[in-house]
């Protein structure tokens, strides 16, 4: 899923103008003004974390609101089933954002004085250039949609995450920063995936590695295998992550409470 933010005066108007030009399924996430997430006329949400209204005639129409999800949670939820998410009014988010007027977002995709000054094509390019928002669910849904899914009775997955401590005495890790050799890394991923998919009983293999800075507890890397039976699914997941770590040019810098260093220097 590609994510782009809009911030500043006219952000909503601009978002609404861009949405119809995007291919695939588009989700829009807008900041509500109410402190508790509720809007006028919606009544109280006391004691309720999430309230859904679903169309009773099976047309799929729904609306929802709640009190316990941040933007990150919502984007994670959307990532598996939407192609694009447009986000309005979250300048502090780690999302490339179109800045209008005096807006000063954390990540500026492009900036302009007013919405009328922004070329729609430039926004579509910014959407395409953004790093994709990928979760484990994104990859699981992707393999389930395989034309060979009817042959598969198993999905095995591996998730690598940022470990805070590797023992009681180990200084706590605050974050890891990953640097990737763009282009070559993607080639290596595709090679490993296609090698593993040649195995008997293995139908799909997909991998994804996040880059940039990730905090303790955040997911780093996913390997997902769709296979006929569990034995080849487990074995292929294990070989997939081993080959990824040996062959894909991605470099890891670790920041602990005491210091920061390149991990390859310590191994």
């Amino acid at each position, binding site marked *: 899923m590609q994510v782009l933010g809009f911030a500043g005066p006219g952000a909503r108007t601009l978002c609404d103008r861009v949405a119809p030009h995007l291919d695939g399924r588009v989700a829009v996430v807008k900041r509500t003004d109410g402190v508790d997430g509720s809007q006028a006329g919606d009544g109280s949400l006391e004691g309720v974390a999430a309230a859904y209204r679903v169309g009773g005639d099976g047309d799929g129409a729904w609306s929802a609101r709640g009190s316990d999800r941040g933007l990150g949670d919502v984007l994670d939820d959307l990532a598996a089933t939407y192609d694009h998410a447009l986000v309005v009014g979250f300048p502090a988010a780690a999302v490339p954002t179109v800045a209008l007027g005096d807006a000063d977002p954390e990540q500026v995709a492009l900036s302009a004085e007013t919405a009328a000054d922004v070329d729609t094509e430039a926004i579509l390019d910014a959407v395409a250039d953004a790093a994709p928002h990928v979760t484990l669910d994104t990859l699981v849904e992707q393999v389930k949609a395989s034309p060979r899914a009817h042959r598969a009775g198993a999905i095995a997955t591996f998730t690598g995450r940022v470990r805070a401590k590797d023992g009681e005495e180990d200084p706590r890790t605050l974050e890891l920063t990953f640097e990737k*050799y763009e282009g*070559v890394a993607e080639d290596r991923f595709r090679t490993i995936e296609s090698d593993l998919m040649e195995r008997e009983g293995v139908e799909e293999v997909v991998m994804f590695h996040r880059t940039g800075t990730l905090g303790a507890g955040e997911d780093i890397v996913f390997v997902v295998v769709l296979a006929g039976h569990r034995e080849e699914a487990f074995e292929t997941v294990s070989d997939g992550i081993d080959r990824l*770590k*040996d*062959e894909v*040019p*991605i*470099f890891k810098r670790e920041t602990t409470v005491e210091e920061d260093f390149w991990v*390859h220097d310590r*191994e």
Partner: protein
Amino acid sequence: MGTVTWRLFADLAEVAEGREHTVSVDPDGTVGDAIDALLAESTGLRERIFDGDTIADDVNLMRNGSPADPTESVADGDELAMFPPVTGGR
């Protein structure tokens, strides 16, 4: 005379004070010549990447996305890369 672009990663980019360096090499030049040209403008890198007279075992070389050797020829516009062991972990 042609030019090739070096891509450096992780601590190599820090030592060389830059992730990309474009250097000039002779038309019949090699990856080794491009390394010499890089070292001429990046003081400190020699100590990091050489073990005696040869490139250290933990330094990887690539030419246009494929593993490369210092004796290999380069062509104008090539992308060369130099990086430490890829991130391991148990």
